């Protein structure tokens, strides 16, 4: 609860800081504010479930842990922005403020107790993302992406709202407990089923599950890379936290009704994400499909909905976020240094010979790719292991078979990057990386390896 208040207020402070002559203060200030919010977040650690604002918002260890993942991800991403100093047209104060505000939306989604809060949080987060996607104003692709994202997002929001209305119509309540109580009475009406499906569709759009994924590649590619990273990690984590909360708190009573739909969507998402990623030439676009495929793996845990699910989603989100941040973190300096005719170069070829030019970046990249591919000794392996474990516990073996086959396909496109970095000769342009930037990347890599070797360190926390 504290980070919501803190960041709402501190976001405004950042806006005012924007009036200062020197923009240099913005980055440290934002990082400081995020750190403050992170500390504020864990004040309520281990205090059981606390309900705020007349049943609107709940705080417990799980929501705090999700908040923690979101905050740490945000901290790393903000740290990699370098204050937007190399761009005269940029408006860093606004960007930072919007990022902080969007986190408030994410927290609301993570801890919502009332569907209104879910909607509010989702919109705060989404609108912020529309703006950030289009922040590179002179870039046509950025504009196009923002417009696409906005149009389709608005459509999905409409569906979600419609679903919420139907749920209210059926149950007479917006609260999770109210809906659960209604289902507990038995014999729910058709309105409830329709409402659930529409809400699910609205949410699945946000986490880019197939067949509602079409916006993802175009938007991810068009948006400035730093905001793509933001989208790929924070929106996804918050989206899955919200989906998990919704399904586990209210709809376990009619599990038999919704799981098969979710399972089919899961399979479709896995297929689309992994198979289409194979043909991509752009690293950024590949990561977009990779983000679709990871949505698929996370959906497996939701589909299984066992007592393990909450831990597996948490661990998976952490592992995925950290590895994705590393991947984008390596791409950003590389694409800038190897820019051709003013445009950043984001194809696989940009990575050629990276191991020679900058062994550190190559190593960071390798660990992140291994983690995304789910190779042992990285956090990504355990993420997949826990997710698959929950499906095995539920006994949905056919889903597991598809998932394992698809993760084999995943190795192809993740390893292409490693091969480019280590086995191909490239130009010898020097890649310069600021020390602070390096610290962020190395920390993220250490996290990936540490939780890959000792996952108990993380799972023991919650």
């Amino acid at each position, binding site marked *: 609860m504290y980070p919501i208040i803190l960041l709402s207020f501190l976001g405004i402070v950042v806006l005012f800081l924007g009036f200062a002559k020197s923009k240099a203060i913005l980055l440290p200030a934002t990082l400081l504010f995020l750190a403050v919010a992170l500390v504020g977040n864990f004040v309520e650690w281990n205090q059981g479930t606390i309900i705020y604002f007349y049943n609107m918002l709940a705080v417990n260890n799980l929501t705090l842990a999700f908040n923690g993942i979101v905050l740490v991800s945000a901290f790393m991403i903000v740290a990699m922005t370098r204050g937007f100093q190399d761009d005269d047209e940029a408006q860093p104060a606004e960007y930072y403020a919007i990022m902080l505000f969007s986190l408030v939306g994410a927290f609301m989604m993570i801890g919502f107790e009332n569907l209104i809060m879910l909607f509010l949080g989702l919109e705060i987060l989404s609108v912020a993302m529309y703006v950030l996607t289009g922040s590179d104003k002179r870039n046509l692709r950025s504009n196009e992406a923002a417009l*696409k994202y906005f149009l*389709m997002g608005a459509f999905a929001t409409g569906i979600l709202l419609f679903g919420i209305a139907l749920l209210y119509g059926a149950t007479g309540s917006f609260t999770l407990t109210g809906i659960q109580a209604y289902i507990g009475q038995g014999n729910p009406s058709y309105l409830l089923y*329709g409402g659930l499906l529409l809400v699910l*569709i609205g949410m699945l759009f946000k986490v880019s599950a197939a067949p*509602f994924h*079409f916006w993802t590649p175009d938007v991810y590619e068009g948006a400035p890379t730093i905001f793509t990273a933001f989208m790929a990690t924070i929106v996804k984590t918050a989206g899955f936290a919200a989906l998990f909360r919704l399904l586990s708190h209210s709809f376990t009573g009619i599990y038999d009704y919704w799981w098969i739909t979710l399972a089919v969507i899961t399979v479709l998402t896995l297929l689309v994400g992994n*198979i289409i990623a194979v043909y991509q030439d752009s690293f950024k676009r590949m990561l977009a499909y990779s983000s679709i495929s990871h949505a698929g793996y996370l959906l497996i845990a939701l589909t299984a909905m066992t007592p393990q699910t909450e831990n597996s989603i948490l661990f998976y989100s952490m592992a995925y976020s950290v590895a994705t941040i590393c991947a984008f973190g390596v791409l950003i300096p590389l694409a800038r240094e190897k820019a051709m005719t003013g445009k950043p170069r984001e194809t696989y070829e940009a990575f050629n010979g990276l191991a020679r030019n900058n062994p550190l970046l190559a190593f960071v990249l390798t660990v992140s790719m291994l983690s995304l591919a789910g190779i042992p000794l990285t956090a990504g392996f355990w993420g997949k292991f826990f997710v698959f474990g929950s499906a095995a516990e539920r006994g949905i073996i056919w889903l597991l078979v598809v998932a394992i086959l698809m993760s084999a396909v995943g190795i192809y496109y993740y390893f292409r990057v490693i091969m480019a970095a280590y086995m191909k000769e490239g130009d010898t342009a020097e890649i310069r990386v600021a020390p602070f930037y390096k610290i962020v990347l190395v920390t993220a890599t250490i996290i990936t390896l540490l939780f890959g070797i000792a996952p108990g360190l993380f799972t023991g926390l919650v």
Partner: protein
Amino acid sequence: MPVTLLVLIPLLPLIGFLINGIGFRHIPKGAVGLIGSLAALGSFAASVAVLLAFKEGGSQPMIVSLFDWIKVGELNIPFSFQVDQLSLLMLMIITGVGSLIHIYSIGYMKHDPGFGKFFSFLNLFLFFMLLLVLGSNYVIMFIGWEGVGLCSYLLIGFWNKNTDFNNAARKAFIMNRIGDLGFLLGIFTIIHAFGSVEYTEVFRQATGLPVGDHVVFAITMLLFVGAMGKSAQIPLYTWLPDAMAGPTPVSALIHAATMVTAGIYMVIRSNVLYTLAPETLEIVAVVGAVTAIFAASIGLLQNDIKKVLAYSTVSQLGYMFLGLGVMAYSASMFHVITHAFFKALLFLGAGSVIHAMSDEQDIRFMGGLRKKLPITFITFAVATWAIAGLPPFAGFFSKDEILAHAFEHNKLLWGIGVLGSALTSFYMFRLLFLTFFGSFRGTHEQEHHLHESPAAMTIPLVILALLSAVGGFIGVPEALGGTHQLAEFMSPLFDTARQVNPEAFAATALTHSEEWILMAVSVAVALIAAVIAYVMYISRSAVPAPESEARTGVENVVYHKYYIDELYDTVFVKPMKSLSGVLSSFGEFVIDLFVEGTGKLVKGLSNLGRQTQTGSIGYYVFAMVVGIVVILFWNLLLN
């Protein structure tokens, strides 16, 4: 128990490894040696502190849980350390002898370009070895087990420009993998049978099982296969002599004093299980005894100073397994300790000789070195005396204890043991006489360069010589009017085993006079062998024949190590190679077809799927709507 202190024991070498491993190109040589040795010494100091703290706290094992490591379903594997008599003794050997060898290496490796690399590997080895003995469950032991295997591989092939050395490293690795497979299957069986890998939990449950239980038999056999690989027992011993390709300090630390005793550690650690499986113990005893005499017989005719010591190590490890097989667990541990002292000393002494001889290792070209290398000579002689089992040095007490237990158990095994001890005495004195006595047989240039080694090398020699001389007094048998402090210290380790099979731990039936006779026999045999060696190599100053000379039948077979390497090559390697040839010519075609076909299929699908991404927003929304309609239609109307 000070947890931080305990954690420091493995952590210090790890830190040393990281510093030297990452920065070896930039750190000056002096600092590299200092960092590596300080890490080992610090670890030793912490071990001593932990030992003292443990002695104050009583005799019960202490388990220090660091964090939850793996939690899958019912199985919970914590990352925790177990401190008890066994792990403490191993700690003392590993860090103590390890520190000495680190210091020795500063002198020995001084001129090597890979100095930094060497020290980082050595520290990494210490880390894994400490993990192996500190872990409180089989999985941590396995990590250490694999880790030391890796370091052994890296260090055997340390001079990786030489193809033979690389092959030796690979051989060691592959042979160990065979053993590891057994170990791994053993762990799986333990998980299956007990649902846990924690020592305390497994042994607690095992007490409920009857003696001779089939599952326990399977587990102990599988674990023993692992031990055979790591501790170089027949049939998996051939890698150890080849492992002498590594730098000599490595041979001393890894291939004599510590890593190869991991198999013994494992059996003693699992003493409850082994006590429940008398059939396994019988096999262990036979394998040990046969290895002891077999390797000793090969040692008789070897001419490479390090090869002789290598076969002697295999043979001594055989004695330790013989001791385990007759349930003389603490006697075996005693021999591990004394062996660590005198065998490390022998290797380091050999290293000093090789250092002086400008890398010559063939004893046919040595001789008369005692005047030029007095310290090396005296310490080497002490070690020879100790390993030959002559009183009052360390080897006498430990070997005799094993032989006494063997006598009680089975007279034949005892006979083999005594014969082996005669052979040991002979080949060791042969080595001593050929190297240090007589006249110099090397080239003129070598003679010119002869010099005693620097202090960094001789000080560890002297310390180890002292330990080899007096180390045996921690276990003086009652028959000689002493008290067996080591056995008393280790006694609580076997409480559980005593409970499940009290008969096996019955008090010794030997009278003191019988024990005296046994001791007299083995000492006499060793002395006679030493005298024969004296007559042959000093009185008659015989020198082993050069490579080219023809040898008679039996001699030839023994000289060529019973052609075991060639046998393995014909029986395993060649058929495997031809099978692999068949598979690669035929199988590869089929598999390629399949693999590439799959790849093409995925790529084709990918190309098709890619075309759905048209970029047109109307199309996207349309696809979404279709999705929504299908979902709603299917769920609401068809269900």
